[in-house]
């Protein structure tokens, strides 16, 4: 339950940026571990890669790209907010950042299914 004083688009953008950053931080060690299998255990890697063709993994990839997109655009939003002396258009930027994230993630999703 979001507390009443936090129910606005700027706070939502903030928390999405944090959660997506945390999600990516959790994902990256696994990602690097799997990449290392190219050198250490190529057969195991091939086995894993064939498993990634299953629909559930494809759906998880959608989530991953979504996290990346949210974090990327959220970061751009934050830098624009703090390093460009804008004033009133901040909310528009928030909406644009989130919409772009959804757009990219959805396009990716449509391509993989």
């Amino acid at each position, binding site marked *: 339950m979001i507390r*009443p*004083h936090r129910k*606005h688009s700027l706070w939502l953008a903030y928390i999405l940026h944090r959660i997506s950053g945390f999600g990516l931080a959790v994902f990256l060690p696994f990602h690097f571990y799997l990449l290392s299998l190219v050198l250490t255990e190529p057969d195991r890697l091939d086995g894993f890669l064939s498993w990634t063709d299953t629909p559930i993994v494809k759906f998880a990839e959608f989530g991953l790209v979504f996290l990346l997109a949210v974090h990327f655009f959220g970061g751009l939003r934050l830098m624009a*907010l703090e*390093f460009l002396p804008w004033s009133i258009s901040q909310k528009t930027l928030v909406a644009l950042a989130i919409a772009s994230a959804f757009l990219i993630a959805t396009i990716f999703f449509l391509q993989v299914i």
Partner: protein
Amino acid sequence: MSTKQENIDVSVWRGDPHSGNYENFKVPAHESQTILDVVSWIQQNQDATLSYRYACRVGMCGSCAMMVNGIPRWTCRTHVKKVLKGKKLEVAPLRNLPVIKDLVTDMDTFFDKWISAEGLHHPSKTRLDPIEEIEPKSLGRVEINAGIECINCSICYAACDTVTNNSDYLGPAALQRAWTVYNDVKDADKQTVLNAVSGDGGCLNCHSQGSCSVHCPNDLNPMNAIAGLKRATATSFFNRKG
């Protein structure tokens, strides 16, 4: 007139610095009624020991801010109809400030932080010098205009989660004040201001959550002022010699 009198269920926080809980009151509803009207009615008709703070009643003095249904608001300019949930209201003292009694908070920390942020005038001239002309459309003056309407109500301070999590953080109002001083061509000591706002409790703590700007009753934008201080701090860092 035979219309039935409707009531509002008002839950008011009662207590002292050590403990407290919500007490329920039934308050007659009226066509045009502010939250401050509701609190005053309770104090005048149901419990004379209820403590709360107000002065001007027209949104100028910044005394009457309270948490209304979980959101910090100026109660004298908040109409009940706008914030009523069902027929219920919950009124509590401002967040992030110690409670003195009931709805009255101790605002010392809030004002002390204005001083810590160097939100003070550092004179550059004596009374014998001619008054400096300020071009109203100059960039600095335009930035100042956006910040000087602050009425010190502490609503931004109560809305800020960074203040909740870091008691040293100067908070939106103090930093916004420092930003107006920093942009004042009549101010002689901008480096002191910059040093004060770029330290441990300074502007770099801000996570740009934006609750200060969203809830400011005067539609000011402290987050924008803090972003200005962040830019000034960064510029100062990269321009440092040696």
